[in-house]
């Protein structure tokens, strides 16, 4: 049930046209406007709290999204999409603009997995995290983002091939739920939706937060904090004028500070500012859903770049920590993903329209870390565990089998040594592939776990409220909070946790001030 309020506010007044130093006082300072920060800011503002949102990246809208990789990647992705683990072996894609990852994601929605939530409660001691407890928060998130099942007529041929291959083998497969409304199926979600149909934070929770009185400062980079004992009293940073590049000082004083810069940005910012938790866990426990992509060639046109790229999945191996998801990529991303195959890639790319692509996504048990580097960029380490390597091989074999069942003539494994499979009889070749860093093309679009919630201060970075252990008023609100990876696309889980946190933080802050904040 909903009750309408006043109409949408224009976003045009939100440019970063700074002309002087700025000092602000507010109740809550939220750093980051991805799904965690935007949802939390909106919840707090709706509850009547004064909120300032700081975003390191720029504020771009549909008018800026020209659907060209060469222009959009530097604007919308951290390091222009070139960020990797320290050994170069895994590309880490994450958004860096107003809306964060939701500006560039594929809009896939999975409810928080009940079995994972149970583990977080039982094993990690997180309270108030059961699926039934989260249900009201989840309901609100689904409503505002207008989450719905992708309709059969919206599934493009690339994804239909995934469904047909799975069904031919008797495997479970289905379409995703997504947060698009009235999708025009242009297929450019990863470069920002030029038609405002994908319900990213930039057109949902951010305007909602502004509607309820929050303030947004794009191109506002926090560089440090001022603390008195274990209480943060201020954040310091730099404002950059988006037109002329001039920089000004920023100071924010607040009752509470929430860092929501993503599982890479959050620990890098806090540790870089000399802040860590009681048990020194901040930055540890990085989970990334290691992912690789296989490309299959068919004898008839697939034209996977047309329509919704990412609309169906095979969940047959979900219990084993493997999900196969249909996806596609623009030429630049596809070319870079296939780079290891040299001449073979050149041949295949001339058959772009005959290619189907899907990913193997792992519910990882491997672990990594994020630490601030000497040049201000995060240093990211991640080792694909032996168990995850076995899952990778099984996932690739399963996906290749699926594609042959769907009628593929060839399946490409994006390995340093070109591997082109031509029948199911060749699947065993996958067992002998070396998986040293940089051998197999790996990437991650989901980073989690670097400020994990938990009851044990020596084994987690934050408590059940998302508060950094050892600090009175410093919180984290993004995928960092996950005690483990979740095995599915995480945006709805993050949004649900942020809604829950909004409830808890409102009670805490209003309790401190007798309802005035």
């Amino acid at each position: 049930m909903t009750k309408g309020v006043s109409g949408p506010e224009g976003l045009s007044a939100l440019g970063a046209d700074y002309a002087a130093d700025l000092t602000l006082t507010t109740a809550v300072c939220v750093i980051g406007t991805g799904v965690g920060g935007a949802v939390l800011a909106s919840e707090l503002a709706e509850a009547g709290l004064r909120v300032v949102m700081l975003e390191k990246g720029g504020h771009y809208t549909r008018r800026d999204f020209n659907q060209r990789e060469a222009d959009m990647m530097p604007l919308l992705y951290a390091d222009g999409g070139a960020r990797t683990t320290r050994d170069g072996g895994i590309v880490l894609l994450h958004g860096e603009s107003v809306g964060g990852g939701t500006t560039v994601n594929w809009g896939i929605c999975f409810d928080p997995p009940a079995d994972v939530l149970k583990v977080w409660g039982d094993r990690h001691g997180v309270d108030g995290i059961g699926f039934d407890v989260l249900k009201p928060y989840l309901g609100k998130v689904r409503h505002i983002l207008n989450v719905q099942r992708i309709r059969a007529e919206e599934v493009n041929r690339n994804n239909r091939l995934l469904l047909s291959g799975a069904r031919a083998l008797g495997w479970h497969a289905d379409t995703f739920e997504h947060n698009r409304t009235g999708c025009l199926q242009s297929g450019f979600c990863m470069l920002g939706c030029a038609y405002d149909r994908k319900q990213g934070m930039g057109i949902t929770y951010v305007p909602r937060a502004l509607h309820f009185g929050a303030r947004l400062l794009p191109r506002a980079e926090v560089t440090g904090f001022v603390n008195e004992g274990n209480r943060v009293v201020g954040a310091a940073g730099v404002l950059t004028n988006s037109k002329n590049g001039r920089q000004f000082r920023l100071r924010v004083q607040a009752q509470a500070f929430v860092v929501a810069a993503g599982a890479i940005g959050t620990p890098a910012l806090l540790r870089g500012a000399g802040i860590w938790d009681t048990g020194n866990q901040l930055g540890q426990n990085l989970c990334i859903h290691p992912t690789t992509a296989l490309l299959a060639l068919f004898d008839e046109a697939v034209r996977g770049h047309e329509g919704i790229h990412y609309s169906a999945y095979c969940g047959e191996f979900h219990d084993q920590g493997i999900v196969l998801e249909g996806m596609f990529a623009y030429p630049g991303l596809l070319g870079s993903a296939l780079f290891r195959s040299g001449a073979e890639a050149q041949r295949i790319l001339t058959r772009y329209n005959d290619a189907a692509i899907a990913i193997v996504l792992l519910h990882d048990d491997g672990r990594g870390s994020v630490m601030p580097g000497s040049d201000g960029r995060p240093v990211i380490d991640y080792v694909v565990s032996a168990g995850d390597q076995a899952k990778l091989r099984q996932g690739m074999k399963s996906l290749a089998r699926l594609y042959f069942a769907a009628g593929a003539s060839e399946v490409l494994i994006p390995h340093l040594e070109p591997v082109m499979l031509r029948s199911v009889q060749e699947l065993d070749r996958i067992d002998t592939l070396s998986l040293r860093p940089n051998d197999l093309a790996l990437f991650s679009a989901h980073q989690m776990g670097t400020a994990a919630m938990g009851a044990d201060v020596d084994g987690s970075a934050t408590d059940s409220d998302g508060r950094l252990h050892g600090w009175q008023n410093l919180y984290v609100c993004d995928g960092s909070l996950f005690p483990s990876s979740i095995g599915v696309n995480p945006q709805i889980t993050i949004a649900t946790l942020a809604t829950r946190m909004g409830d808890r933080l409102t009670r805490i802050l209003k309790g401190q001030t007798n309802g005035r904040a």
Partner: protein
Amino acid sequence: MTRREFLLFTTTLALGLLNGAGARVAGAAVAAAPALRCFNQREWATLDALAMVFWPAAAGRPDGRVVGVASACDRLFEGAHPGLQRELKLALWLWEWGPYLHGEWCSFGQLSMASRVRYAEHWRTSAIGLCRRVFVALQRLCAMVYHMQPATWQSMGYDGPWVGRLDVGLGLDSQGAVAVNPNPNVLSVWVGDGRQ
């Protein structure tokens, strides 16, 4: 960095410095770069030569030089974090001077095309992790930038963006009034499930 990689790095550095003078003379033969924003002329030339190794002339598609891979890389990383720029420049520097480690008394830019291809293959198949890492990073970069350029799209059968092509005719252009978020729930007050 392992001990082996450290030795590789320092040996390349020493050989590069020892032969720096000769290289500067040879640098005169490098193709003239346009006005550059991120890379210097030597780095641009290394990228330009690399693009020709990865994307040589072939029937039906343009080569890496025609597409302008090196200049497009330069534009792409113009505003990148200085640390990332430094990493890329270091990778290009290692690549440029690496031939000394393979018994070639010259830089990458001075190798014949056939030798450049063999040299790239050395790095791709190297047992040294740093070499494979540099190879992967540079090939990934060149491949990405090559395919980002509209000049390559026709040979792939990629139609390109809707913006400025399809959407205007359909009345959906992103500048127009039609493109307004149709989600009715964004600003609604949620009173479901007992919460308000």
